[in-house]
Each structure stands twice: as C-alpha cells, then as structure tokens.
C-alpha cells in the first residue's frame, strides 16, 4: 500500500510541476548551504589536523608553562618554569628532549667610532642544539646570513645574533660579545658564529610554538651555557620531548608531567591529540555556527513546503472527499500528504547535497589558493545520509500539519467543495 501511496503522491507532485519545483528549490538552497559549509568545515578540520601532525609529529609532546593551555587557562603563575633537562632525558620512554630558556642580560659588544663600547640589556635565549638537529619542524626556517652558521651540539661559548642586535652591538661573525649572568657568576665571552637572516617578507621567522620566535632582537646561545651564567634552569619557556619508537605518547606525557610537577616544575604536557582536539573544538564550533545560520534558510524552505502543502490541501479538497468516499481512511489521506511533502523534501535534499558537495569542492580550491594550502575535500557518508534523511523529515514534518487538516475534512463538505 505504501508503494501505491508513493505513486499517488508522486503523480500529484508531477501534476503541479512548477509549484513543486519552486518548493524544492526553497529546500535545496538551504540544504546546499548547510552541506557546503559543513563539508568545508570538515575539510579545514582535516587539513589543520594533517598540518599539526606534520609539524608536531605524532611521537612528540610539548611541556608548556602550567595553565597556559586548555580550557582552564589561568593568568596566575609565571610563563617560565624550572626544569631538569638532563633528568627528563633519562625518563623512561623519552628519546630526546630539547628546551628553550630565556633571560634578559647585560651584554657588551664592540666599540664604536668614538671608542665607546656598544652595550645594553637584551633578551638572551638558550636553545638546546637538539632543537635544530632533531626538532627542525618546530623551529621553522632558522637561517643565517652567508658566512655564518648555527651552533652545534659540541659548541659552548658561541652565539647566534638577530640582525638588529648584531647591528646595535656592532659585531660581525668572528667577533665577540660579553654576557653578564648572575652576580656570583663570571662574565662569559662568546664568539659570534652566525647572524640570522631577516626574512624577505619582514615577517619575523617563527617556529610552530610561540616560545621560540626567531627574533631579530634576540641573542641565541647554547642551552647548556645558560647554566654557567644563571645556574640551573628556572626560566624555561618551552620543552619539546620526543618519545621512543612504539611508546604511547599520551602515557609518557602524562607521566612526565606528573613526575616533573613532583620535582617542582610547573608544567603542562601537551600532545598532538590535545592540540588537534583543541583546534577541532574551535573549528567545529565555527562550522556549527555557520551551519546554524544556513539552517535558517532550511527553516524557510520547510515553511515553503508547508505553504505549498496547505495550498495543495485547499485545492484538492474535493479530491480528498472523493478518496474518502471511495474508501480512504483518515490515516490513508494523512500518509499520502505526508509522503508527498516528504518526497519534495527528499528531492530537495538530493539536489542540495550534490550542489553542496560541488560548492564545497570549489570553495576549498579557492581557500586553498588564497592561503597556499591543499584543503582536503571531504564527502562524509554520515553527513550525506543524515542530510538525505533530514531533508525527507523536514518535508514530512512541514507537511504534517496540512496533512492532518486534509485528513480531518468531513467527506460531505469536501465533496461539496468547488
């Protein structure tokens, strides 16, 4: 009987071609918008996820100052923390670790034309050489001007300078600077081995984590040498830890965090999954918001279906009377009308899904060209199924009220209707 009702509903839709199509257009505009926005959102999410994985590597975690990441972001506490890097390297499951510490120090350069020494308080950053050798994806493109080099693991009293700092201190590669540490420690003379190249686009060279800007105003020295100036690290900005092959990153990260906290380091371990879920929360909130806006047009489409169905009920009053006279129950009439409106919704859904997927592919290509990334085009089967089901439901629900009215028409009145 359902098939017969489908035929009856279908023949009535086809009989009113123009109006049915206009109604369907009302539905598919909304569906197109929703599908396109969600697909682009999913594509962006996957792209960001891939990018994070590329930079971060799934085997790496970051130790950030406690409270600097996650929903419970707090302003209290310093953004630097104490760390025993050598101990961390011996922790079970850790393969390598690299850290960055930062101080502001009194630095002397070379004398100027009148014989006055160039000097001043400048930011000094201690970088583990492993940062350059093992975690290059984090550091970004640290490049030195021709004739210079970055420091290596064996180096101790060498420095790499930002361009601006080098000019201020009047030093060049091969010359020396003097950095003063704590009062009870001796001053140390560093040989400048490299000067960072300024990026062409004036944008500061920057690694993935905000703790390591390759800044033109900073002096970079080996992490180990920082200890000779200021003692054990109390001033770490960020630590990168790579786990041994085959180890569960989240497990090692949790253990490292717990043990470091027990040893007085105020740290939070952030893994790849933490970051992607944090980004995922943001992107899915944004796409849900956009889809919500698109949903309004869907609502308008639904009202359009309802309007069409009311008109249809009115102009088919007599037909309803005839069907009832020849043995249609109220439930039969109700089914026929609900199927009819549901079918219009479904057709709108099919057209809208196809157009929406097409639109999202185009939009992804345009966004990808704008930001110079390849954005994944996602045709999620769940999304498609849900959209088709939802659009039938939208039509059916919108048709329910008119259909109920149709089914409740008294036969005699309906037959008399002209």
């Amino acid at each position: 009987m359902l098939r017969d009702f489908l035929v009856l509903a279908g023949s009535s839709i086809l009989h009113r071609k123009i109006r049915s199509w206009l109604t369907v257009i009302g539905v598919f505009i909304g569906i197109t918008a929703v599908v396109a926005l969600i697909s682009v959102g999913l594509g962006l999410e996957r792209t960001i996820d891939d990018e994070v994985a590329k930079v971060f590597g799934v085997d790496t975690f970051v130790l950030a100052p406690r409270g600097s990441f996650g929903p419970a972001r707090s302003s209290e506490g310093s953004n630097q923390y104490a760390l025993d890097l050598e101990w961390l390297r011996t922790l079970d499951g850790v393969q390598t670790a690299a850290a960055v510490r930062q101080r502001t120090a009194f630095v002397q350069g070379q004398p100027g034309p009148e014989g006055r020494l160039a000097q001043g308080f400048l930011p000094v950053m201690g970088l583990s050489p492993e940062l350059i050798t093992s975690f290059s994806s984090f550091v970004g493109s640290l490049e030195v001007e021709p004739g210079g080099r970055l420091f290596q693991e064996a180096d101790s009293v060498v420095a790499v300078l930002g361009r601006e700092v080098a000019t201020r201190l009047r030093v060049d590669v091969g010359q020396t600077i003097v950095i003063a540490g704590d009062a009870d420690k001796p001053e140390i003379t560093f040989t400048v081995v490299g000067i960072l190249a300024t990026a062409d686009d004036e944008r500061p060279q920057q690694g993935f984590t905000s703790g390591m800007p390759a800044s033109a105003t900073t002096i970079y020295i080996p992490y180990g040498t920082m200890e000779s100036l200021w003692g054990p690290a109390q001033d770490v900005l960020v630590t990168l830890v790579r786990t041994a092959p085959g180890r569960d990153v989240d497990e090692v990260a949790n253990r490292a965090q717990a043990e470091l906290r027990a040893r007085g380091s105020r740290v939070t371990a952030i893994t790849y999954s933490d970051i992607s879920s944090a980004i995922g929360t943001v992107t899915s909130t944004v796409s849900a918001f956009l889809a919500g806006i698109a949903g309004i047009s869907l609502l308008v489409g639904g009202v359009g279906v309802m309007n069409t169905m009311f008109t249809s009920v009115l102009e088919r009053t007599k037909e309803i009377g005839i069907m009832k006279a020849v043995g249609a129950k109220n439930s039969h009439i109700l089914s026929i009308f609900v199927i009819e409106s549901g079918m219009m919704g479904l057709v709108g859904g099919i057209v809208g899904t196809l157009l929406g997927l097409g639109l999202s592919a185009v939009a992804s290509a345009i966004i990808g060209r704008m930001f110079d990334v390849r954005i994944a085009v996602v045709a999620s089967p769940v999304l498609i199924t849900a959209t088709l089901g939802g659009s039938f439901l939208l039509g059916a629900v919108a048709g329910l009220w008119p259909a109920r009215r149709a089914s409740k028409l008294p036969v005699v009145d309906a037959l008399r209707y002209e």
Partner: protein
Amino acid sequence: MPLLELAGITKDYRLGKTFVHALRGLDLTIEQGEIVALMGPSGSGKSTLMHILGALDTPTSGMAAFDGQSLQQLSENQLVTLRGRKVGFVFQTFNLVPTLSAQKNVELPMIFLGVPKRKRAARAKELLTKVGLADRIRHKPNELSGGERQRVAIARALANNPEIILADEPTGNLDTETGGTILELLRRLSVDDGKTVVLVTHDPEAVRIAGRVIRLRDGRTVEEKANA
C-alpha cells in the same frame, strides 16, 4: 431482509448561523436489486439522503441500517470500510482524480482496501472494458469526454463489487444521447448483475428505468409509486 432501512431519520446541520432541517422524519426501505429514483425540488433533502444512504454521513436521529447493521453503531473507520466494500458512488460532476489515469482511478477504491496490484489492474481493465472504454485505459480524465468520464466513474463505483450504486444526477452534465447510454449501463447493472441502484435525478429519462419513484419535499417522503 431489505438492503437499506431508514426509519424516522432526521438530519440537522448548521449553515452559517441558521440551522437547516434537511430531513424531518423520513422512512425508506430499499430492497436488493431494485432501481429507485429519488426526485424532488432542490432543498428537499435528496443529497442529504444520498449521503446517509451511502454512509458518508450519519443521521441526527432515527434508525439507519445497512444489510441489517445499524450505521450509528459503527466507528468512523468501520463506516469507511463499509462504503469501500458495499457502496459505489457516481456523481453528477464525475469526481475523478484529475492526476490519475482511467485505470488508476478505477483502482483507487481497491488500493484503499489493500487489493494486490496485479489483481487490481486486471479488475480495472475488466471493468473499463465492460463500460466500453477498453481503448481509454491510460487516458487522464481531461483527455476523455463527459460520457467517457462518467463511464470511468461507473467502473470505479463497481471496483469493489458493491451491493449498491448511489448515483447523484448521473446524467445531469451529459447530453440526452450520452445520458441514455449511462442510464442503460446502470439499468443493466441491476438487471444482469443484481445490483441495487439508487438514482437522485430530475431527468425524466432516468425515471423511466426506475422500478420505483420516491418524491421528497421538505425532508419527507411525499409520494411513492411503482413504475409500470
């Protein structure tokens, strides 16, 4: 036992703010297989009576029984099933569903009774052949002449092999000649197939095929006479 038995039927309904007493204590008995013509001026209650005879409407008071079963005791869905199985309607304005072919229109009453597709299609073709429309099976109502439409309507009325055909001015929208063929068709249903036919009509030609003529005025039977 009579097929239809009405006793002391009244029917009131409201038209705007005024109450209309359409039927005022009407008695009527209709036997199996006869042709009855209901006549009377407009407003005499003919159509209301038709609706009650066809279980489309229930009387305000009085007793109405179909095949010995009291209509007042049936639920709405039972009334629907009763008219689906036992009553066939033929209307003055044909009342075909415009979006459906002749065959689908004839199938309609069978669809609602849940008759299987193949059986339905065969029955519809048989009936359309019987009313002389074997070559019009796939036509839509707007592709048919008035007489052809009324014949489709008769085929539809016969779909579920009902006991009674209720025809409301079946020749009202047709010319004399076409009307004549329709009346002949109805007459043969009674003579050949033993169907009961009730005609509401002004048409003197229609009266001629009736075995009995009943005149209504002001919601009552005023004259009842047997045709020779």
